[in-house]
């Protein structure tokens, strides 16, 4: 399902349970529409018919959503790594820090969570698929899967191992359920041996999954 209203994403993401995968819902699809999909199409039709929204406005919003990428989040992390004052502002108010970088933030509230040598953080939305879209774009399919949403809170270490991350018992694994009004982004630790890299090169080390907590910078980057 596409996000017509990224600032209230949990209101429509419930319709993710469909057979269409990433494709837009349409009346003449080969698979039978679910109740939610039929309702979505009916509502969309009525909003257009009543002149509340135009088809063109909906198309434009889809285009904006499609353009959002994890690069904005990566850019923010790289800036925090090279600029301690920015990092402090980001940890205090991530939304203000994002706006400072010229990022158009559609979320009501953004919070940055810092990984440390003693605490690794991971984000999930168990109730639907709340996600910081203006920083990371559309969520990956695994993030909205019921498997991830239920298992990340129940057996996070096992889930992390499946992503290739293993932490000793000296490190706390802290799960953040994005269940209500805030949206979260992880501030990973800067990898060793990156002193010579500039901000843009550092941003290239930060993959989407690093910003959700299921990867570390420099590993699996660019995914």
């Amino acid at each position, binding site marked *: 399902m596409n996000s017509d209203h990224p600032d209230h994403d949990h209101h429509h993401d419930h319709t993710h349970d469909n057979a269409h995968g990433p494709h837009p819902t349409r009346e003449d699809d080969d698979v039978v529409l679910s109740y939610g999909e039929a309702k979505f199409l009916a509502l969309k039709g009525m909003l257009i018919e009543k002149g509340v929204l135009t088809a063109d406005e909906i198309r434009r919003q889809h285009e904006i959503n499609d353009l959002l990428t994890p690069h904005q989040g990566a850019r923010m992390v790289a800036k925090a790594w090279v600029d301690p004052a920015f990092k402090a502002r980001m940890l205090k108010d991530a939304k203000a820090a994002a706006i400072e970088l010229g990022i158009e933030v559609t979320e009501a509230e953004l919070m940055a969570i810092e990984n440390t040598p003693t605490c690794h953080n991971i984000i999930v939305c168990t109730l639907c698929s709340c996600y910081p879209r203006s920083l990371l774009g559309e969520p990956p399919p695994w993030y909205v899967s019921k498997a991830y949403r239920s298992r990340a809170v129940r057996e996070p270490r*096992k889930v992390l191992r499946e992503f290739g991350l293993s932490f000793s018992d000296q490190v706390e694994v*802290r*799960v953040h359920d994005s269940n209500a009004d805030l949206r979260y982004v992880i501030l990973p630790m800067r990898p060793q041996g990156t002193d010579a890299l500039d901000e843009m090169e550092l941003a290239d080390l930060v993959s989407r999954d690093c910003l959700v907590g299921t990867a570390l910078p420099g590993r699996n980057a660019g995914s």
Partner: protein
Amino acid sequence: MSPNAAPTFAPGARVRIIDLKKPGHVRTPIYVREKVGTIDHFCGAFENPEERAYGRIGGARIPLYRVRLMQRDLWPDYEGPDKDSLVLEIYDHWLQPA
């Protein structure tokens, strides 16, 4: 965020997440109900999603907190060290002092 809805719980306070057994668009997941945790952070005051979801926009703002629970308290058979935890957002009316 509204400055006038002051928090009723301070960071560090022990709280029980109650089960209001309320139908509809509630944001308190089942798996944390009747569990005890600690107030981690006051997020500000937000309109109640249980009202907003049904078009009742502009109502009172209520305090929202990040509540930290230990995984061991959530799942008795949790696989991992005692220090592992989970943080989520809970509205004031779902909390009681513990």
